[in-house]
């Protein structure tokens, strides 16, 4: 099987664009990714489009109606917050299989403000606030407090994740926010669901990101190998059975399974990874994934954030983009935006937030319900 390479990749600056349509927002990132590698829509053999909010709305085709109706195959995918990673993986799969040698993946989302989730539905009465909470901040608070129960992780340690990621975003012009949030500010901001304060919840934004993926032969033919990013591993998992599944959506076991399989596919270990973009939809979630991705021994996550190992300049920088907490989380776009971030570092083009000497990076997303997508990327030359 051929190797697959990201030859062009980009994202728009995340923000709020109520005046635009979803296809318009998606088109922007595609044009930027095409410009990144000097190709056009006429060079693309298929489009894999990830979007959640209009999952039945043929967003991929509507994008082509904006930028070029070339008649290529379009696949629209939805997989909760793993939607973008799933679209990327479908594109990768097609290239690996030899079906195509040059394809596009795009993730796009337009979001409202406010709480996501909520218990109940169905007939009868609302169960929210009666049988606990199904709001996302509460669900991820419970996931974090499970870690606190097992390992003694503290509110302050969870809050430090948000301090770190907001600090990182001050160096990322494409992040929604570029503001420092000191520890006291994070801990004293409005409590949403203890231990997640408002500044420990990801930002609902509009955004898009896109990637052009080519086979090895095509990458060489096009003369694009010098900036190409090799996909060393692409893994997608669902949640294996766990005893508390029915009441606690499980983001841990699907991540552990995906990480194990991704390291095996890449022939690498966690110690070989130079930077990580992981799914910090809430500050509590980031802590869990230090353990889940093997960045430390189980239970070592609190110490990792305390010691600064996961900050820019540390042993294994995590979410130098600002993460979902400050860069923003346009659900369907997130899984390709983090591929853009890692690729930019591997190319040495990340400016003030550059992870020095980065050669191999890992991206991770979770779709609650659950799906986990992990990609391991490498700059070859």
């Amino acid at each position: 099987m051929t190797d697959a390479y990201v030859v062009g990749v980009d994202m728009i600056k995340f923000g709020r664009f109520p005046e635009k349509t979803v296809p318009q927002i998606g088109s922007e990132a595609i044009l930027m990714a095409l410009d990144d590698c000097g190709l056009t829509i006429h060079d693309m053999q298929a489009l894999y489009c990830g979007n959640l909010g209009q999952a039945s709305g043929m967003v991929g085709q509507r994008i082509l109606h904006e930028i070029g109706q070339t008649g290529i195959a379009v696949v629209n995918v939805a997989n909760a917050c793993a939607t973008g990673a799933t679209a990327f993986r479908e594109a990768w799969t097609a290239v690996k299989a030899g079906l195509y040698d040059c394809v596009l993946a795009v993730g796009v989302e337009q979001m409202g403000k406010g709480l996501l989730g909520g218990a109940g539905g169905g007939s009868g009465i609302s169960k929210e606030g009666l049988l606990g909470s199904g709001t996302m901040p509460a669900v991820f608070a419970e996931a974090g407090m499970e870690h606190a129960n097992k390992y003694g992780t503290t509110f302050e340690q969870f809050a430090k994740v948000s301090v770190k990621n907001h600090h990182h975003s001050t160096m990322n012009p494409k992040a929604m926010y570029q503001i420092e949030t000191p520890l006291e500010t994070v801990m004293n901001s409005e409590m949403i669901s203890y231990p997640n304060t408002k500044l420990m919840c990801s930002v609902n934004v509009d955004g898009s990101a896109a990637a052009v993926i080519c086979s090895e032969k095509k990458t060489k033919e096009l003369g694009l190998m010098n900036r190409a990013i090799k996909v060393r591993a692409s893994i997608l998992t669902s949640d294996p059975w766990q005893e508390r599944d029915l009441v606690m959506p499980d983001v841990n076991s699907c991540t552990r399974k995906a990480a194990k399989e991704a390291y095996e596919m890449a022939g690498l270990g966690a110690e070989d990874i130079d930077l990580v973009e992981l799914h910090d939809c809430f500050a509590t979630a980031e802590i869990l994934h230090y353990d889940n991705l093997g960045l430390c021994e189980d239970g070592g996550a609190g110490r990792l954030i305390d010691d600064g190992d996961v900050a820019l300049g540390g042993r294994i920088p995590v979410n130098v983009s600002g993460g979902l907490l400050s860069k923003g989380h346009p659900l369907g776009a997130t899984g390709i935006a983090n591929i853009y971030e890692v690729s930019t570092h591997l190319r040495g083009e990340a400016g003030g937030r550059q992870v020095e000497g980065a050669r191999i990076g890992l991206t991770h997303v979770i779709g609650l319900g659950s799906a986990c997508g992990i990609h391991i990327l490498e700059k070859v030359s």
Partner: protein
Amino acid sequence: MSDQPLPVVDYMKIPDDGDPYLEGHKCGKCDAIYLGERSICSKCGVRDQMGTTKLSTQGNLYSYAIVHRSFPGIEVPYISAVVDLDDGATLKGNLINVDPDPEKIEFGMPIEVIFADALGRKDSDGNSYLSYFFQPRS
């Protein structure tokens, strides 16, 4: 409209002559316990070996969140709790009769399941509901 309160979830049973209880469905092959009726076990995949079991009302606190912001009309703060029951099932619900303060909540604290009116909530037909809650076991 029913003149008796209705069960808040389909796995709550309210017998005519006896106390309400929660019903689990237990796999006859691997003992996995589910809330709500089903015929296939998603742990081991076996078909048609589910039996009903009356869930324990005793358990221990496994995890929680203290909810300060919810949807409009939902009274806050409250404790959203995950409780491991003694028989191996896990339930989620409101933990009551404890201050919504992390200092007052201990992992592993003994919990009992109680049944009470669903905070006055009624459906569009005016039916009232019986819910379950967690409270500390004394």
